[in-house]
């Protein structure tokens, strides 16, 4: 009996996955990269067939004040909503991991199950100027400040952050719940015997033990923050004056409203690079800490 198998078998086994990764990830990435080097604008007859443009699309983008503002909006959005998600998800998971809170977990998770379009529409109703529920609620406490949440240039981005936070915090909680429930019980029993306080337990044990989960959650959350765009369509359309335009919404507009295929490819490449830079840094930092420990 020989243990030598068919040498093709491993390749056959990864083939289905590889096939889809090539078709849906590698091919579009390469095609965007190439496309971004061309002036390709469907609504201008002479650029309807791509014309080589070098780094022109990137230069056009980075010299545009509007695009720099959109990058700024996107960064502010991501660095606000991701920590909100991760920290809230962690505390919800720690709080709700006990079996008697099982029903509350469902309550916390339910916004995740709503389609973003419905959730944003419901929030539009809450955020209505004048008689919206949020304004009524704030008025109850005697507040009568800015009331026009989605059309106020300094509030519209935060209205988007808030709705995204409300919607997906429960989603990231699920990952932490799985992590928390896998924590070794004996360690905590030992800590109790040693008389360790809750702060020491949390910062010296729980948090480091959940590092792998945190790495996963932050990565997924950052990608999620860049990816969610439905609420922009429903709530602000990027307005007023572009103050709540996020990168992906802008990408849609450049591609389908301005029919500028080359520039939209360049935005795609910028988006991929930003995500790649973050993911790689996140892994490197986390892995180094892992080997240090």
């Amino acid at each position, binding site marked *: 009996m020989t243990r030598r198998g068919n040498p093709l078998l491993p390749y056959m*086994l990864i083939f289905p996955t590889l096939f889809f990764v090539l078709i849906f990830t590698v091919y579009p990435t390469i095609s965007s990269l190439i496309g971004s080097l061309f002036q390709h604008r469907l609504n201008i007859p002479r650029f309807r067939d791509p014309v080589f443009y070098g780094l022109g699309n990137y230069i056009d983008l980075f010299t545009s004040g509007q695009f720099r503002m959109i990058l700024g909006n996107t960064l502010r959005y991501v660095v606000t909503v991701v920590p909100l998600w991760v920290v809230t998800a962690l505390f919800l998971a720690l709080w709700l991991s006990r079996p008697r809170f099982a029903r509350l977990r469902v309550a916390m998770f339910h916004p995740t199950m709503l389609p973003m379009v419905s959730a944003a529409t419901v929030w539009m109703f809450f955020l209505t*100027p004048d008689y919206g529920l949020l304004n009524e609620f704030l008025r109850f406490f005697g507040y009568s400040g800015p009331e026009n949440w989605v*059309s106020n240039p300094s509030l519209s981005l935060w209205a988007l952050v808030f709705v995204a936070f409300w919607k997906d915090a429960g989603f990231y909680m699920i990952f932490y719940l799985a992590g928390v429930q896998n924590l070794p019980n004996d360690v905590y029993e030992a800590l109790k015997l040693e008389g360790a306080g809750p702060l020491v337990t949390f910062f010296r044990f729980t948090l480091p033990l959940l590092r792998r989960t945190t790495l996963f959650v932050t990565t997924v959350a950052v990608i999620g923050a860049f990816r969610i765009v439905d609420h922009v369509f429903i709530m602000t*359309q990027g307005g*007023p*004056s572009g103050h709540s335009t996020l990168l992906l919404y802008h990408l849609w507009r450049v591609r389908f409203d301005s029919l500028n295929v080359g520039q939209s490819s360049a935005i795609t490449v910028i988006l991929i690079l930003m995500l790649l830079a973050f993911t790689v840094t996140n892994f490197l930092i986390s892995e180094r800490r892992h080997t240090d420990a």
Partner: protein
Amino acid sequence: MPRFMMITALIALVAVGAFAGGQTEATEDQPVTIRIAYPVAVDAPVTEILDGYAEEFMAENPNVQVETVYAGGYEDVKTTIQTTIDGGGDAPALGVMLATDLFDLANAQYIEPMTPYVDAMENSEAYLDDFLPAFLSNSYYMDELWSLPFQRSAVVMYYNADLLAESGHGVPTDWETLGETASDLTERDGDTVTRWGIEWPSGWPYWLFQPLAIGAGQNIVGESDTEVYFDEPEVIAAIEYYNSLSTEYGAMPEGVQASWGNVVPNFVSGNTAMIIHSSGSLSNVLSQADFEVGVTGIPGPDGGSFSVPGGGNLYMTTGLSEAQKQAAFDFAVFITEPSRAADFSIQTGYIATRESALADDAMQAYISENPQAGQTRDVLATAGKELAVQNLGEVRNIFHSHLQSAINGDMAPSEAMAEAQRAADEALADFR
């Protein structure tokens, strides 16, 4: 043996996945299927109406199968058609998209000219002459006819006639009386406003703003498809007047108002005395308001009544078979027939697109019962041109962004419009 089976199964699986996309081509003698993409974000039961028309058409033309595809708004229909054609798929044969999208759609070869089909009609000239010129003028480009007016509207001002009568005001005729009337009709309870004199949505503002600029003496768009006039003194005066309705008269909420969906409910419940909106909301307004509703154009600084047309046309997409093209055109003609144009207008509040539809018995009966339906049509008599230029998406976005800055007070109106003009000229340079 199990390994062999597994490999076979894997190969089979991949093969099925790879070839499942292939489709068989329809042959000549098979019935023709056409699909029509339609935006449902309208204040009327459009799915029922459209499905009804499709049924009627199929009863008359048993060889044609009409399928309706419903999408959210005009943008969604456009995106559906663009992505399908870009991806090499079968796009819906007909789509209802904004009349102003013409240049971009035609340049990008998403749509097919209808001229050959109209020319082949027995009464082609009479057919085209019957459409209201304000609507049909949007359909021509490069000496071709590209679309048929279908779901057309105009900017109008709805007013609560009972409130005006109670307060002793007539219908506002110029900027000053509009401001004063709106101011008088605004009611406050301490700091809280319980009724606004006027609401004028500005979340997607160019359309509702245009009549103000036209009234002031300068439309923001010129006759050619590459001219815009954003930084003219009249346009700036129009912005200043818009702002004064809140800052001076205290009759309108301050700043940009993304209130398109809210103002009709506010108006019909009596919480707002006058609103600027689409004539397409007429049926909805009339069915819900328990007071006398008046409809008029937007007054100019020294009188007059101004408006712009809007709404969607029927476009035929590219990549159809000859049989599909003919069926799609026949269906487009079928649903624009006078009796159906009248029926559609009565059921939705959109303006009947043809003279003969307005003369239709049912339409006349409806107008005598609801004179407002006739008033929306009268508004069109003095309507200017809707913003329709090359590279529309970008130019419109530039205008929106700067107009909103001027409304929110981030920039002075003159400064914002100078910047908008510069950016728009740049965006149009490639087309001149």
